[in-house]
């Protein structure tokens, strides 16, 4: 039993005391808030000084080409660096290395990625690191030892892109709150007890692996204590007060981003948990609103300064320099009470106290039942900062309960109970071209996959093309699952996320998250083949490289069931095919319609499509309709996307929505109310996710010309926010080309 001392004075007791159960603690103790934003406090002088320091470091970082500094002498682990500070008045302590924005080298995912990243920014990795990895394989080594020729080809020609085979898979959310609520010693005690339980099971493959993993988890928890003590904090015991609760939670998160360079390193759902501690301290007269906001502001400053070392090519794929510190805010409890607290407002309010920003990736779990005051505040913040994304809590809650968090952009997991094997995505549009060419890749004329006749003469017939396409889907789904199995087998073996998984239950549910890109292009292409006349055009080698379209066809994005049903059918077919192949460690298959930010890169790798899109042109982001083809306004466009079934796409369906604020109403109050109606409407139609961008096209045109003048202009790109200035020119132009919803 734990020694409670006075850590828990004032808390209502419950199951959370006898078991590790943060959700129960929250449920017993939190105070829903149904009011408006008028209680919020502005930035203190201290916060303003810290912000100034942060922004001057950001500026230096940009001036140095994107990377301020690299520690090339150490391998990044939980305990490899001396403590680092932003100012001498930091409230929340801790950086990944000994200095803010200085990046660590993390070669466990892949040595080459680490070396190339250093080289690109003019640094050289210390030879002693090479020396070590001469004797130890990385995740990347393991994967390529096991990859088949076919897997390599799919990867090389971009049928499957962005696979986590050369970098950390990320997308795992530790329950960082556990450290604050229980203290590390209690967590170690629980893990040791799990070890004992596992000793009673026969030593099969899975049990041997799990016992070794739990052993490593315990080791990493010990390291976490050492790291915290270097900042003068003893986190072996639970947090005494709110400041400690935030600090302990942050240390746990910090240890994770020191240990893993994952693509997305999300935070989970900490706001309402913190709120309980804030309420207690305010009641005891320890804190007032200003000091509570000051703690949140400093916490968010630290999150904004999290950095990973990646190659410029990686950043081009993901646009900007993302870390996806996603925090899930709001939502409803299963008991019908809202999970919105004052701290839900406070974390959004950091966008005013510290300025707009892509990180942390603030994600509102929206329900029709959220309090009006909170809905209105969200709409206001969206219109002012474009820094929020929304996800449909009413859709996810029945599946994931009420203590889930979003990893990356749209991917939900029960916190501490589920983890996932991230699997990037396959290019459905390119697969269609491959099937039309009977297994010849359209840009390089190489043979991949099933070999059969091409549809290279006469008008394309829908039934034949679709039947053929489904055969290719079946084939690709099989190879895709196998590829993922190889990757995650090796990732567990060589780059196991010890600290993050120590903050999970020992017996966890695993998800395997597949993805598709190019959905709107395939839907439109099949619709063109079905409703117009499409003729293939071949080059001198008989390879279909272009199409002639006669007549018009219904286009995805206009709430037209003729084509929307094709899109809906496609994800269902693809999902079903995936589920026919067994996964590593019995993970549940999930699917996302998401491009993250790589829709530009997918487009570059894909030839001309039967819908009329030319070779190399960017795809639409996520599940969005293709640029300019949604002709009946934004609502019709949203309706098309909302028809995709979440039951097949439990890893998320991303939709990016850009609007000129003046088209949402004549004044700010109207705009806010109308934005609330829009989100309510989309989610009532069972839409899953929406990014809201509110900006004028003219401003973006100016920012495209002189990005350096707009360092803080934040835009949302397919599930994620980035600073416009951090995008490549191609990405900026793609954003500009995207449909702007403004009508005379």
């Amino acid at each position: 039993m734990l020694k409670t001392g006075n850590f828990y004075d004032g808390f209502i007791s419950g199951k959370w005391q006898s078991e590790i159960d943060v959700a129960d603690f929250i449920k017993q103790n939190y105070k829903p808030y149904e009011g408006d934003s008028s209680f919020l406090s502005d930035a203190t002088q201290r916060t303003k000084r810290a912000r100034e320091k942060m922004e001057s470091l950001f500026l230096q970082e940009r001036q140095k080409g994107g990377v301020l500094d690299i520690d090339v002498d150490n391998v990044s682990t939980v305990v490899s660096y001396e403590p680092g500070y932003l100012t001498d008045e930091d409230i929340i302590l801790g950086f990944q290395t000994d200095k803010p924005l200085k990046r660590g080298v993390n070669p466990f995912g892949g040595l080459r990625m680490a070396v190339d990243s250093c080289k690109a920014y003019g640094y050289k990795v210390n030879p002693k690191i090479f020396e070590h990895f001469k004797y130890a394989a990385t995740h990347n080594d393991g994967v390529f030892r096991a990859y088949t020729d076919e897997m390599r080809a799919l990867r090389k020609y971009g049928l499957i892109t962005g696979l986590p085979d050369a970098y950390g898979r990320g997308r795992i959310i530790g329950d960082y709150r556990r450290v604050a609520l229980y203290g590390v010693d209690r967590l170690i005690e629980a893990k040791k007890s799990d070890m004992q339980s596992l000793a009673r099971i026969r030593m099969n493959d899975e049990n041997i692996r799990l016992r070794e993993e739990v052993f490593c988890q315990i080791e990493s928890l010990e390291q976490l204590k050492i790291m915290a003590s270097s900042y003068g904090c003893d986190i072996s015991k639970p947090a005494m007060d709110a400041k400690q609760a935030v600090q302990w939670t942050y240390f746990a998160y910090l240890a994770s981003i020191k240990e893993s360079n994952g693509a997305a390193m999300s935070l989970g759902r900490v706001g309402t948990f913190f709120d309980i501690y804030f309420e207690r301290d305010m009641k005891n007269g320890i804190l007032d609103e200003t000091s509570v906001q000051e703690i949140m502001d400093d916490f968010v400053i630290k999150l904004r300064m999290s950095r990973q070392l990646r190659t410029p090519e990686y950043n081009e794929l993901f646009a900007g320099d993302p870390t996806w510190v996603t925090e899930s805010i709001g939502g409803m409890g299963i008991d019908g009470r809202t999970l919105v607290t004052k701290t839900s407002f406070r974390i959004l309010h950091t966008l005013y106290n510290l300025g707009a920003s892509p990180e942390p990736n603030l994600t509102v779990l929206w329900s029709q039942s959220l309090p009006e005051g909170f809905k209105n505040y969200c709409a206001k913040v969206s219109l002012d900062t474009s820094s929020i994304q929304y996800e449909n809590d009413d859709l996810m809650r029945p599946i994931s309960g009420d203590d889930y968090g979003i990893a990356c952009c749209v991917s939900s997991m029960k916190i501490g109970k589920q983890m996932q094997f991230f699997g990037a995505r396959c290019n459905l549009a390119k697969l269609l071209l491959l099937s039309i060419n009977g297994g010849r890749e359209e840009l390089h004329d190489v043979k991949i996959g099933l070999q059969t006749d091409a549809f290279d003469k006469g008008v394309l017939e829908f039934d034949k093309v679709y039947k053929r396409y489904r055969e290719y889907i079946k084939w690709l789904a099989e190879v895709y699952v196998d590829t993922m199995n190889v990757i995650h087998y090796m990732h567990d073996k060589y780059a196991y996320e010890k600290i993050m998984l120590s903050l999970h239950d020992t017996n966890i549910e695993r998800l395997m998250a597949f993805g598709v890109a190019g959905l709107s292009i395939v839907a439109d292409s099949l619709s063109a083949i079905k409703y117009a006349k499409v003729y293939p055009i071949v080059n001198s080698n008989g390879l279909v490289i272009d199409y002639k379209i006669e007549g018009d066809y219904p286009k995805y994005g206009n709430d037209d069931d003729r084509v929307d049903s094709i899109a809906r059918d496609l994800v269902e077919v693809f999902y079903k095919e995936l589920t026919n192949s067994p996964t590593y460690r019995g993970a549940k298959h999930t699917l996302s319609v998401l491009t993250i930010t790589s829709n530009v890169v997918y487009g570059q790798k894909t030839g001309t499509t039967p819908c009329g899109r030319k070779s190399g042109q960017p795809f639409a982001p996520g599940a969005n309709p293709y640029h300019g083809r949604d002709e009946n306004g934004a609502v019709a466009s949203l309706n098309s996307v909302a028809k995709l079934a979440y039951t097949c796409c439990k890893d998320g369906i991303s939709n990016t929505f850009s609007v000129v604020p003046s088209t949402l109403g004549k004044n700010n109050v109207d705009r806010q109310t109308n934005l609330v109606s829009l989100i309510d409407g989309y989610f009532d139609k069972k839409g899953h996710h929406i990014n809201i961008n509110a900006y004028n096209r003219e401003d973006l045109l100016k920012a495209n010309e002189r990005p350096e003048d707009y360092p803080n202009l934040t835009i949302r790109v397919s599930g994620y926010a980035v600073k416009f200035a951090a995008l490549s020119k191609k990405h900026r132009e793609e954003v500009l080309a995207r449909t702007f919803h403004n009508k005379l």
Partner: protein
Amino acid sequence: MNEGKMMSFTTDEIQKNVLGYVNSIESLGALDGPGLRTVFFLQGCPVKCIYCHNPEMQDKNGGRPMSVIEIVQIAQRNRPYFGKRGGVTFSGGEPLMQPDFVLQCILECKKLGIHTVVDTSGVIFDKCIFDSADLILLDIKHTDSEVYRKIVGCAMDNSMRVLDYLSNNNIDFIVRHVVVGDLNDDVQNIKALKKLANKAIKIELLPYHAMAMPKYEHLGWEYPYHLKVPSEQKMKELQKIIDS
């Protein structure tokens, strides 16, 4: 799937099959009536105002034929977005050019509890529609009959008749007035407008804009370059008169 939500129609099948000619649909309308609305821009207008910003909708021929049922189905599909105040708006063109169609659409929407707005230039008087719609947006182009004729090309009488009818029959209406620099941006005109429209829920001053220029180019029409966009300062000044 939306196919499942098809409504069953049992009465007045023939009436509901009246066809309308629709130029375009804006499903995210937030500027033509309260709340979020689906705006149906109907084809055809009997007049040719000099600053028309939808010139492509003037021609009586053209537009996509749509039935009342189709309109109502779209309204139903978009209904979750309407919130507490939104609904559908019939604009154009001049929607009253297609009175049977608009009236049937309004009646069907009303049956379903969908809020309806008609956005009219005031050049056509249609008692049935004025009585049926939940809200009328009435464009008053000018308060002086001479200048009115210059802008619209016809006499002001009909417009005044519409205004009188709406004013005297407790019908909810908003008066809209496009403000063009040097044409109708004088204090006198705005004061007269305020007096004239004293029964309106609200008077909205809409600054003239030049964003329709590409449409004129597309049609091969000469653009009225002499028209001036009023300054922000001017608009504030005139708004003060309305608010006072």
